[in-house]
């Protein structure tokens, strides 16, 4: 078992090296990338099954005991996220190979992508705050390359915003680590969980708030979300898809881990509700105001992150289970929406609503994919969003936070509205730049039909959102067990400490 834990981190890095070495052959690179990510997905499933049966497990790399070595640890939450993340990485890689563009034009795409995969896995598996920093840096450094891949002017401009904000967050993170270390003398999660409660309350609150700000920037919480809708839409669509699916969620994971394990009940629940409500409202209003498919979807990422923060504020089994379900649902749905957007762009030649139209006739397949994913995002039964939102709203109701419930429902409706806006603009509106009458002269020439390698992963992910809805019961039970682990972290702490 211990062997398996290291593989999701090390295999992609090894693959990245090999992928550079075989750079002359695109085919060999693809074989390396696909086989590595397939293996990682398999390993992740094995870890999840093991962890769900036998409880958290860990490995101490280098044979050094806990506070010294690099501890890798998996509990139900991290194993579940690892499974979802690695299958997304695999699907998006297949899509990127099928798409004319990003993957074909740059010899380094595959290896940088694999480094990103390794970073995401390391962030989920690490048992040590400093290694969390390293993992997030690994992921971000790879993302700097991916977001500016292609080197168009607006890409580099918005990429600069993204890089500067991320570096600022990293500096803050490093400072927070230094404060934590000077206050407690350790960065190991197990040791920290023991020593943080002994600190004066003011110090605890300051550290908790600092970590919330750091991860809030990464997760795009209000008021630190502004970099996201600006930078994501300019990247190639598979890159945006994987960023939208995974990067912000790593931030949310880090918030869950630190706030439940190190600072339980330190920050008031009202703070989380306030941040969550503001994030949701700003995100969804921003989405409605946009007229570009990619920008609408990017603002919706921000809106959806708000839902997860509510659950962290609730801080009970039902609330945290709802957060975990939302994470899983959102990773799958957001990735599939951006992949569908890539199909729309390939077919219609643009992502602007007023240049697209009539695709319900010219591309019914894409219309079905987008329709299902959009309804899932908005939370229509029996799709994945319904399960996530229903469990969250049940948890809110149980704690009688009525105004939060009202905001959540309102934002849900507005999300549906923003999705309908895309639907009307892209699929129903008459085709043509003006969106006006005379269809004959302004008829947009239908683009090339999408390659099977782009369609298939998108279809599988969309089917995944249906599956999450259909198998909502077992998944909710798993999320509930993971949430119980978060509230009773003793087995996790023992695993980190290597006992």
């Amino acid at each position, binding site marked *: 078992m211990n062997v398996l834990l*290291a*593989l999701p981190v090390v295999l992609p890095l*090894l693959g990245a*090296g090999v992928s550079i070495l075989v750079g002359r052959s695109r085919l060999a690179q693809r074989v390396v990338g696909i086989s590595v990510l397939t293996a990682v997905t398999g390993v992740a499933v094995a870890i999840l099954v093991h962890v769900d049966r036998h409880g958290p497990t860990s490995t101490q790399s280098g044979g050094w005991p806990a506070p010294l070595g*690099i501890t890798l640890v998996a509990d139900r939450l991290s194993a579940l996220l690892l499974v979802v993340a690695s299958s997304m990485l695999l699907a998006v890689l297949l899509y990127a190979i099928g798409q004319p563009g990003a993957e074909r034009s740059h010899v380094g795409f595959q290896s940088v992508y694999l480094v990103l995969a390794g970073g995401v896995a390391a962030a989920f598996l690490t048992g040590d705050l400093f290694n969390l920093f390293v993992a997030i840096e690994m992921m971000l450094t790879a993302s700097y390359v991916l977001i500016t891949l292609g080197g168009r002017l607006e890409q580099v401009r918005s990429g600069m915003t993204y890089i500067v904000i991320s570096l600022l967050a990293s500096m803050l993170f490093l400072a927070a680590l230094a404060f934590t270390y000077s206050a407690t003398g350790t960065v190991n999660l197990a040791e920290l969980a023991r020593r943080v409660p002994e600190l004066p309350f003011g110090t605890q609150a300051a550290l908790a708030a600092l970590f919330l700000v750091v991860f809030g920037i990464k997760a795009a919480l209000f008021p630190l979300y502004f970099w996201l809708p600006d930078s994501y839409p300019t990247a190639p669509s598979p890159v945006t898809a994987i960023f939208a699916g995974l990067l912000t969620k790593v931030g949310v994971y880090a918030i869950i881990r630190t706030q439940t394990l190190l600072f339980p009940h330190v920050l008031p629940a009202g703070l989380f509700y306030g941040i969550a409500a503001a994030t949701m409202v700003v995100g969804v209003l921003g989405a409605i105001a946009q007229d570009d498919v990619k920008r609408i979807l990017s603002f919706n990422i921000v809106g959806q992150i708000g839902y997860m923060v509510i659950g962290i504020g609730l801080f009970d089994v039902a609330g945290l289970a709802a957060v975990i379900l939302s994470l899983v649902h959102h990773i799958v749905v957001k990735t599939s929406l951006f992949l569908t957007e890539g199909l729309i762009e390939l077919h219609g030649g643009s992502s602007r609503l007023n240049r697209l139209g009539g695709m319900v006739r010219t591309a019914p397949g894409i219309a079905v994919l987008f329709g299902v994913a959009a309804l899932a995002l908005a939370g229509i039964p029996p799709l994945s969003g319904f399960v996530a939102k229903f469990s969250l709203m049940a948890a809110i109701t149980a704690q009688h936070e009525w105004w939060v419930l009202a905001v959540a429902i309102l934002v849900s409706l507005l999300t549906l509205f923003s999705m309908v806006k895309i639907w009307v603009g892209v699929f129903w509106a008459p085709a043509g730049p003006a969106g006006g009458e005379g269809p004959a002269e302004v008829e947009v020439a239908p683009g090339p039909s999408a390659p099977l390698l782009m369609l298939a992963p998108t279809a599988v992910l969309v089917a995944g959102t249906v599956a999450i809805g259909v198998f909502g019961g077992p998944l909710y039970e798993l999320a509930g067990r993971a949430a119980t682990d978060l509230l009773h972290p003793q087995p996790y702490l023992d695993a980190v400490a290597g006992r």
Partner: protein
Amino acid sequence: MRRSLILDVVVRVVFHSAFLLGLFLLFTGHNRPGGGFVGGLVAGAALALRYVAGGIDEVREALPVRAWTLLGIGLACATGSAIVPLLAGRELLEHFKGEVHLGPMGAAHYNTALVFDIGVAFVVVGMTLMLLVAFGERLPSLGNSWARQETGR
């Protein structure tokens, strides 16, 4: 490109010593200050000196490999040395040390962490090389304008 005689001569003297210092730091790293990262940085700095003195062509002459190749070898080497102990049923990144007896030359202490360090050093030197190539390459869109401006004076 206008070359400075003094710089040229100094770099010619310093380059090999700096590169050697980098190697020294790499090999001494396990028990004393040093290691793959620092060693790679010093060796990379030596390359940067060549770049300052003679431009990208001279860097290519000093190290006639592609930056990608160095990066790839380094990454594969470092992660490979991390995985090998797993195959032997040990922990990730676990390393072993020992002594080789070389007859009259005495005993040499070795540690398998060196393989990892060499990989790191390769990555660092590869990164430096890539940086120098990126800045030193004549961009097709800019033509040769930078170099021309300098020689024009």
